[in-house]
């Protein structure tokens, strides 16, 4: 990739030779800054949590209140990622395949949840879906309560993780070869069959990546959820909030233990994303043949 005419066969050294200057300076600055701002503080968390006695650690991590918070955090995140899997695909499809007035505006707006501060989405969603809110007032007679329930948590997580699926699927949909699709249809394949055999395999890795990214973002989300959740222990209390509560009581160990659990899950998600993408590349090559 980089280094158009690098010397061959210099695998013994840490770095391949280049005539460009500044490696020492930039590499040194990068690693030192990365270590101070990111790695050392994270190491502190791991050390703090692992310095607990096993019994204490498990007691904190498996307390009924913690288990309740995992159930909500993971359940709602999974649901939100699934909702985004369906709607994200539909939206990406609409934006890629159809031309309609306002398409460019909608396309730009998709990134809004990335740019909008989470506290703003939190209070705005709560207002819209409260009992007397624009949408909440129509759901109330149907017996559907959104604000201050797990439904509200799911809704907030859906909003903030929506762009991930759309943005993951859009480029993949652009790559689907229309000729193949049309050939399949002229040869008498049904719409659904063509979709299943040609579009889905191309888009599947992107869909899964989007799903995982959505889920990973939703699990850790705090700002938008605490406004709409109601924050009742065991019922509408997410894990990040439980960490904050531990911290506010100066129970640093307890907070670190829960933090470690979430950190491990984040790593697993990162690993999963990398595996999915590697699998996707292999799949792509197989389709291309």
């Amino acid at each position: 990739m980089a280094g158009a005419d690098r010397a061959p066969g210099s695998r013994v050294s840490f770095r391949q030779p280049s005539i460009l200057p500044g490696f020492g300076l930039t590499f040194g600055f990068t690693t030192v800054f990365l270590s101070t701002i990111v790695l050392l503080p994270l190491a502190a968390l791991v050390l703090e949590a692992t310095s607990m006695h096993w019994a204490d650690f498990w007691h904190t991590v498996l307390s009924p209140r913690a288990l309740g918070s995992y159930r909500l955090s993971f359940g709602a995140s999974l649901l939100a990622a699934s909702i985004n899997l369906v709607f994200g695909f539909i939206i990406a499809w609409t934006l890629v395949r159809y031309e309609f007035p306002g398409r460019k505006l909608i396309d730009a707006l998709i990134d809004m949840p990335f740019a909008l501060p989470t506290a703003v989405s939190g209070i705005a969603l709560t207002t819209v879906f409260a009992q007397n809110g624009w949408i909440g007032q129509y759901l109330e007679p149907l017996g559907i309560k959104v604000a201050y329930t797990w439904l509200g948590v799911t809704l907030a997580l859906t909003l903030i993780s929506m762009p991930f699926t759309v943005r993951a699927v859009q480029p993949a949909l652009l790559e689907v070869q229309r000729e193949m699709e049309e050939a399949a249809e002229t040869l008498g394949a049904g719409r659904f069959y063509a979709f299943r055999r040609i579009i889905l395999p191309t888009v599947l890795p992107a869909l899964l990546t989007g799903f995982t990214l959505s889920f990973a973002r939703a699990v850790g989300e705090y700002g938008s959820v605490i406004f709409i959740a109601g924050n009742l222990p065991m019922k509408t209390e997410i894990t990040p909030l439980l960490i904050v509560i531990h911290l506010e009581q100066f129970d640093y160990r307890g907070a670190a233990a829960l933090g470690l659990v979430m950190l491990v899950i984040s790593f697993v998600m990162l690993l999963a994303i990398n595996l999915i993408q590697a699998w996707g590349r292999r799949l792509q090559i197989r389709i291309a043949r």
Partner: protein
Amino acid sequence: MAGIPITGSLVGDSSRPGQRTWANAIVRWLFICISLLFIAAVLLAPLATVFIMALSRGIEAYLHAFADPDTLAAIRLTLITAAVVVPVNTVFGLAAAWAIAKFEFRGKSVLITLIDLPLAISPVISGMIFVLLFGLHGWFGVWLQEHNLSIIFALPGIMLATMFVTFPYVARELIPLMQQLGNNEEEAAITLGAGGWMTFFRVTLPKVRWGLVYGMVLCNARAMGEFGAVSVVSGHIRGLTNTMPLHIEILYNEYNFVGAFAVASLLTLLAAVTLVIKTLVERTGYRRR
């Protein structure tokens, strides 16, 4: 929103094999409607609510909300934080991109993963790690107290947490861009006798300027809007350590909705400006990936 004429231009669809045009039209209409309804309910309604609530007592009450000294202090704190964090992370991003894109060395992919790490971590954890280090009961808590220094519940903590959260934004925009552009021009400049700095400022920087703007704008949006991480380290001292998003929470919990949504409207405008700049940058020909 659903009443948009579907018989507009049929750019993408008109080349389809003729048989199933009616089915195509129905699917098309359905997909556009679902997309628009979903975006309207989840995204547009909350956005509109922000401004309607902020102006619900008239323009005067809206403007009056900004006369509150605590609100002004929150705006000032947010601006100061962003003014420090964005340049620091920009310098880091440039250094990291130079080291990673211009040279081949071992462990490069590990370094890239580590730079992206903060994106995968819950904001609450991002704040907590600094509390564990510098908090009253943290590792350096006693030492800091003896020397009369405060990091947590003060400006340095807010900056550290924000720096952690926005750490990857500039770097992850620049690294792929610089890798893609290659080294030929830089190598030519060096061969012709230009110094390292001259090559960087005259050759590299002009090439990557739009990517740089892109990354800085995203970094700034996140820095100004961060809630979870800053909430953990700030201590919520009114007029002193409250950033804009934290001040929104306080006002909202005090049922001062005009005040809360007035501050929220500023952040929403910031998000809108961010998206506009992003769209403009993309229009200059700089595309993601």
